[in-house]
């Protein structure tokens, strides 16, 4: 009767759900794009790490991990940026583990205090231009030039839920902070103009479309993304070594507290951050690793990239608590 019907539906639903969940493999949350996630998964499986990668935007993953704190779905998190990893660590979500490759890692990328988050590569957040559409003379010299009238409608600001967007917005706001660390009115006026001047999108497709139809010629992107976009749209990007420097973010890896596959997770972390795999990744995607041994093993072009741009001096640990408030102001007042 009614009960049986109900039970049938529930069990039917349960069967359908369980058919997708693969309980055995290690779940890795990572904001790498689909292509890179697939490549990492293939490489990992080739050496016996059975992993499932869940790719999503950095902030979306960050929110998910916080939301799932009581019921963690991930075993390992990799690729979230400094500030996000710092917050998750302070929420007590990570398991301590010193990876085999921690030896020799510069202190800035180690976690000597808690032994939880180890950084494996660095990513400059860059300003690039389409050199087929814009000459070097006409290109901006730095981030703060974007508000000039000649760049109106020529660049795209993505969703603030993307960690790239968040990083360059924060990188610009940091330039306008006073002694107490607050953003000045001048800084918010700049931000308003930056948005007023921009094409604002919520999806990667929409961003690509703005470059395809030729409206946008300036790309605010992470290092590897600049090349990807240029390739998919069909133009030659040139990165600007900006006045005042470019924000560098480094990405970390950590094991989630409460994972039921601790051994597998540790083995995966050891493998992933190893100089050999980092160098292989660098060869494949041009990503600059931070481990000196990995840099030494990387192709020359990657080694050259490591010194291509001037880093902006940002103390991520110090501004991490401010970022949510800044993004809220951008979302509720400026956007």
């Amino acid at each position, binding site marked *: *009767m009614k009960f049986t*019907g109900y039970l049938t539906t*529930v069990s039917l639903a349960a069967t359908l759900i369980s058919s997708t969940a693969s309980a055995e493999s290690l779940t890795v949350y990572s904001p790498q794009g689909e292509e890179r996630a697939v490549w990492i998964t293939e490489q990992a499986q080739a050496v016996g790490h059975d992993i499932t990668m869940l790719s999503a935007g950095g902030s979306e993953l960050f929110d998910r991990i916080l*939301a799932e704190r009581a019921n963690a*779905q991930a075993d390992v998190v990799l690729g979230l940026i400094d500030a996000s990893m710092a917050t998750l660590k302070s929420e007590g979500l990570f398991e301590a583990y010193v990876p085999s490759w921690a030896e020799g890692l510069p202190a800035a990328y180690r976690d000597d205090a808690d032994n939880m988050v180890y950084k494996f590569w660095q990513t400059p957040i860059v300003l690039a231009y389409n050199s087929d559409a814009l000459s070097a003379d006409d290109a901006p010299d730095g981030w703060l030039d974007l508000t000039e009238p000649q760049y109106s409608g020529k660049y795209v600001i993505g969703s603030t839920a993307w960690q790239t967007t968040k990083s360059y917005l924060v990188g610009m706001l940091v330039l306008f902070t006073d002694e107490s660390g607050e953003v000045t009115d001048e800084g918010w006026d700049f931000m308003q103009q930056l948005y007023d001047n921009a094409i604002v999108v*919520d*999806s990667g497709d*929409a961003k690509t479309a703005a470059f395809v139809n030729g409206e946008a010629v300036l790309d605010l992107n992470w290092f590897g993304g600049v090349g990807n976009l240029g390739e998919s749209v069909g133009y030659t990007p040139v990165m600007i070594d900006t006045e005042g420097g470019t924000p560098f973010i480094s990405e970390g890896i950590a094991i989630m507290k409460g994972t039921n596959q601790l051994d597998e997770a540790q083995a995966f972390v050891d493998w992933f951050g190893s100089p050999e795999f980092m160098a292989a990744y660098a060869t494949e995607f041009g990503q600059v690793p931070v481990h000196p041994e990995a840099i030494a093993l990387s192709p020359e072009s990657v080694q050259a990239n490591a010194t291509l741009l001037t880093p902006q001096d940002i103390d991520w640990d110090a501004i991490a608590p401010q970022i949510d408030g800044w993004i809220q102001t951008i979302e*509720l007042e400026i956007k």
Partner: protein
Amino acid sequence: MNALLKDFRRSPMQAVLFAIVIWAAVAFIFGPIWSVLKFAFAPDGTASFGALFELAESRRVRNAIWNTLIVTLLSIVTVNVIGMFQVAVLEYLKVPGRGFLRLAYSTPLIFVSVAAATGYGFVYGQTGALTRMIQAVYPALPNDWFSGTLAVVFAHSFLLTSFHFLFLRAAIRRVDYATVEAARSLGASNLRAFVQVVLPVLLPTIFATTLLVTYKSLGSFAIPSVLGGRRFDMVSELILTLNSLRRPDMAAMLSIGLGAAVILCIVAMQYIERRGSFIGGAKTPVPIERVRIGNPIMRVLVIGLAYLVAVIQLLPIVLVVLFSFAPAKSIGTEVIPSTLTLSNYVTVFSQDTAFIPLRNSVVMGLAAIAAGILISLFVVSMAQRVKGAVSNALDLTFMIPWILPAPFVAIGLILSYDEPNPLVLGTTLLGGFWILPIGYAIGAIPMMIRFLRAAFLSLDPSLNEAAQSLGAPSYYRFVRITLPIVLPVIVLVSGMTLNSLMSEYSMSAFLFNVNNKPLSIALFEGARSTNPEQAAINMVYIVLIMAFSLVTITLADKYGLGSGQEKR
């Protein structure tokens, strides 16, 4: 209370079910409401209006409230004008091709929510067919001409007329034609007879439909999200933004504001409904004879307008259906597809990424319906068997979600279950599969209770008494007598609920996650994408949703359930 205890003693099963239903009410209705109130007014445990002030200070929030009010006011006017015009054309005037027009005017019944918004975007949006057609003639037309207030009000105007189609048409049929003839014999023109004789009889219904439109427009979510464009938000969207900014206090406060506006509407609606029933029509009316418009210019004008409205309503649907059979590459390049193929349908049913949202929506819909029907059956049958305060309270409790906008319920669920909660055995629902079907069930129960109550009221009590006097125990009587009679209603209500859940957007946008991404969210993401493959999949989704709606509504209509009785 005594009667209740007696009932439990007679059947311990009832006591168990009673406990389950009480738990559901506490966990999923009162708990979430409490959470919203707590976070809005005392996020840290002490009373505070900080959230209210912060909301008032935000430019984007103020704009969203302003936009919502403007859109609602404009929609009331445009929807009424178009809705009344449609009813006049169908029921009062002699217009050729009435069958075709009726078909066109009935499309808002099956073309709803995010599916309709996506369809409109496909025709009028940035790369829409019509946008490119107009640009071919006027190249100066900007790509994003169809956005903001214009786009949202336009879409509302042609999508929210379903109430007029259902209720106003029914009302005009109750008009006594003798009164119209009398007016005309006294020298009144067609128009004057309509305005002074027919309209007054329709007024209560027009008020009721106006309030339904207000209610829908205030809570409008999918349409502004898809069509609004940059720097245009309505309140529901802002609640979602605040939630994603991890400001539950502000999200809760704004959802209370939206809830208050909606409740005000419903109170007004009920007041007018109650008053309206006294006006009524004639008991045995002379059926209306459609009048022919005398003035030839007027006649051509009216007929032209009637067909224009029909074309506007049909255009997105025809194009969506056509392009669902077109190769993906023809989307965005051709105005009418030159070749037809089934490959998009094959993709949806064979590729996991395309099929999973469809499966998720069906599974979650069925689970929500099963739970909802079980609870509704219990509540309604108990109200029948055991009269008294407890039954009434239970009945009212499960009707509460009817007056709460979906974002309110969703925020409540998020705030109650973002960490382990003893009410659900110490689990965390947020981020899991079940939170969304629970939200669906909460939203669906009021309609289920309404229909089941009506079905139970029509039961002949003597059947039950006869069985009882023959010694049949209560569960046996329920299975053999009650259930067979109410079963058709259960099936139809389930069908209609599944139908509305297939394109449910408001609850979904808040509660979905990677484990349960439903069809509506896949559609929404597809609508924002500029990838033609994604657009092609979207066309198929919309066609499937419309086909399903068509089947359930036809069935519901056939079995006399009426199709416009959707909850919102």
